[in-house]
């Protein structure tokens, strides 16, 4: 099981991440019990069933699936996952910012997939607050990454204003 970092602590992950294996269809795949994070296709195919389960629910967006796809349904989700098939594919950063800043999602945004130490700082700035570290990566060590830069220049999700508005700077 991958280690989860949430609110800057290594925690146990009580959600099951559902990924469709080859040959599995959204309409028919078995839904494990308990808190569940499902692909967008499964959500679309089985909304009523998922909402009737009574367990916490999350949906995850793959690259190429924008937040627009679920913008009107955010209240249904405790967690929104954003997938990084490769850590070098940076689409998920925009997804998280839009979820927070355009669509006002206040639940957990969880980075899943190829999630590595050295991207955590940037991800946190874009609105991610949970990180399912790739298997084999050291979560305790990775916690340091959040402290990489104390005063970044830009406004983002973590800081509403850019440095030049946050502080009076020397001329």
């Amino acid at each position, binding site marked *: 099981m991958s280690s989860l970092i949430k609110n800057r602590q290594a925690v146990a992950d009580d959600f099951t991440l559902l990924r469709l294996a080859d040959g599995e269809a959204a309409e028919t795949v078995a839904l494990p019990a308990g808190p569940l994070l499902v692909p967008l296709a499964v959500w679309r195919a089985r909304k009523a069933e998922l909402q009737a389960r009574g367990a916490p629910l999350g949906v995850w967006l793959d690259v190429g699936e924008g937040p627009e796809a679920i913008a009107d349904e955010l209240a249904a989700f405790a967690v929104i996952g954003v997938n990084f098939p490769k850590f*070098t594919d940076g689409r998920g*950063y925009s997804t998280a910012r839009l979820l927070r800043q355009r669509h006002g999602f206040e639940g957990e945004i969880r980075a899943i997939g190829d999630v590595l130490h050295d991207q955590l700082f*940037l991800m946190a700035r874009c609105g991610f607050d949970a990180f399912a570290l790739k298997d084999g990566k050291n979560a305790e060590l990775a916690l340091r990454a959040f402290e990489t830069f104390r005063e970044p220049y*830009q406004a983002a999700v973590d800081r509403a204003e850019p*440095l030049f508005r946050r502080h009076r700077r020397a001329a």
Partner: protein
Amino acid sequence: MYRYDQYDQTLVDERVAQFRDQVARWQAGELTDDEFRPLRLQNGIYIQRHAPMFRIAVPYGMLASRQLRCLADLGRRYDRGYGHFTTRHNLQFNWPKIEDVPEMLAALAKVQMHAIQTSGNCIRNITTDQFAGVAADEILDPRPLCEIMRQWSTFHPEFAFLPRKFKIAVNGAKEDRALTWFHDIGLHIVRTDDGVVGFRVIVGGGLGRTPIRGEVVREFLPWQDILTYCEAIIRVYNRYGRRDNPFKARIKILVQALGVEEFGRQVEAEWAHLKGGPATITQAEYERVTAFFEPPAYATLPAIDAAFVQQQADSVPFARWVERNVRPHRVPGYASVTLSLKKPGTAPGDVTSDQMDAAADLADEYSFGELRVTHEQNLVLADVEQRQLFALWQEAKAAGFATPNIGLLTDMICCPGGDFCDLANARSIPVANAVQARFDDLDYLWDIGDIDLNFSGCMNSCGHHHVGNIGILGVDKGNEEWYQITLGGEQGNDARLGKVIGPSFAAADVPDVIETIIRFYVEQRREDERFIDTFRRLGIDAFKVAVYGDKARLKAA
């Protein structure tokens, strides 16, 4: 020029610590090579033919003498006593060890320098006009806005893993000296009739294997909105740019696929949400940064220095140097001097550590301790008193900087090519040197006049061959080095791409071919016609006949 405050300094110091930690984790096996690769790239480290190459940012080309001395020192301690200035204002070392880079970064941080985002699929060093702040045709000094954009782009949390690299150039003068039409975003500072300053925004230009001239996406954008507007452009690109094929991943491909109207519509729709937001530049911030670029304490001098005029009359070599390497200045009695890094026989853009120290001394003595790096791979001393030019010239000569060839054929842009670069199809430096050697007669070189010759070792086009009046491109034919020639490329306001004249040539024939082209031009030109004007008048076919008429001798393949 800009000086770091505690926030800027803390950030680059933290960067040194971050990279030191990344190198240590990579050495300990906690980071795989694939995981480390983008991290080192975003810190300017390529692994190339012989060793890693390490690229250091010179933001919008501004360099203080103490910074140049630091680079000289690094060159001696960690490289082989030289460095290479690139077409994007950076300095590249060819032989450092990765293990040494954290120490090099620590030394750089002490002089307010870094290597952040000098490579990788992120927003790169922002480039501008080397005569910013002193050019007579300037609308507004672009450097304060470049600095504000530098800060905004540094560790931008959303745009660290774009589909591909992203290059921005800003020009603040009437004449475009920053190649803005061939950048991912090109910005022209404009002033409306009622005095409002803003930008014309160009997107989707680029060279590389699919060279495309950019297109205007917005005719006028108030300067305060530049960060939010760039954020809108880059967000659209980050979300929708292609990632399936690195050769199709630049923003130019997206702009071409959508058409500039549709691309612009998507940008405007995104911008509607961002416009007026916190990233809007405040007047206070603009003024704070602008204060760093106030003109230096110029002396009050006559517009023309009599002794300077006399010195030119007395010394032909000095007069020649003045004509090619010295430019008029906005302030009476001053001039801007280009130190040529194109001494025939050396690799264009290369400087030794001793030369870096010498250039730093010249800057301290003659030009308020500052220099600029040009995209044509030379150095500029922007603020020299006319009455000091003769003394400067003598010192520059001693240091090997006074080749009077700025804008002439031997002042060529050239990439590192096959001697250093893994991607190369062919070597560029030796062939460039062979061409320089062919045109070693200064009188002939002078008679040929203004001409841009640009040289790339492969179609990645680091040497800008597409926009050279003459472009030379290394191509690979059955594992042999061949060279394709393009003619008619141009930079500036009327920037355009050159066209291939025909089959390529073996290395040994390249000087002959260039000579044939030049001889044809000299025969055909009218009065003061520059090479490019004659080319436009006659068209490419006339030149093709001149070159390929004698096929046997040239062994054209």
